[in-house]
């Protein structure tokens, strides 16, 4: 929604650089993880997902890494563009089918 991202951790990167957004999850039983991008006034937009039987998955300009040992998830964005500026949420799902969202990180891209 509007003003999503107030008081959130912020990552500032220069256009063209790579971005890494990190997320710690809580439930060792979670078997599915997903990253969403949320722009102000809009709903969360799917970016990339990964199941727990994998440790890396790549998409177009994005890569998700999963470390189950330390319960850590990261999103890497290559060649960050101004249009990538948004709040990014990770979410986890166990067998209950609902998503549990993390706090969110605001990504700011400057020229």
């Amino acid at each position, binding site marked *: *929604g*509007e*003003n*999503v*991202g*107030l*008081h*959130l951790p912020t990552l500032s990167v220069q256009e063209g650089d790579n971005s890494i957004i990190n997320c710690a999850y809580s439930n060792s039983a979670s078997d*599915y993880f*997903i990253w*969403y991008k949320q722009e102000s*006034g*809009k*709903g*969360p*937009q*799917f970016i990339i*997902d990964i*199941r727990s039987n994998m440790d890396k998955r790549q998409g177009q300009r994005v890569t998700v890494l999963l470390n189950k040992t330390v319960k850590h998830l990261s999103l890497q964005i290559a060649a960050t563009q101004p249009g990538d500026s948004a709040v990014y*949420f990770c*979410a986890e*799902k166990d067998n*209950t*089918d*609902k*998503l*549990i*969202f*993390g*706090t*969110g990180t605001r990504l700011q891209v400057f020229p």
Partner: protein
Amino acid sequence: GAGVSQTPSNKVTEKGKYVELRCDPISGHTALYWYRQSLGQGPEFLIYFQGTGAADDSGLPNDRFFAVRPEGSVSTLKIQRTERGDSAVYLCASRLAGGDTQYFGPGTRLTVL
């Protein structure tokens, strides 16, 4: 194709009033979810439908909140006796049977004065 749609986009109401929020899922998606997002927070789960039935309503905060999906497509979230603390963005998501990905709508911003 068309994504998840939600109406209204904004709703302003007075404390104590009743409101209904509507969600149209992606055509063919059997699973439908409602989440609530407060300012500066991630979405929080409210309720999940598989077809017409509520498979999990553990996230509904109290009995003022109720949701229906009578024909297994459109869903309505109903809030009785609204309170100022109900002010938030209410998000709907849908998922294809057998898939994992939940696709979100744009949300309804509810403001209770």
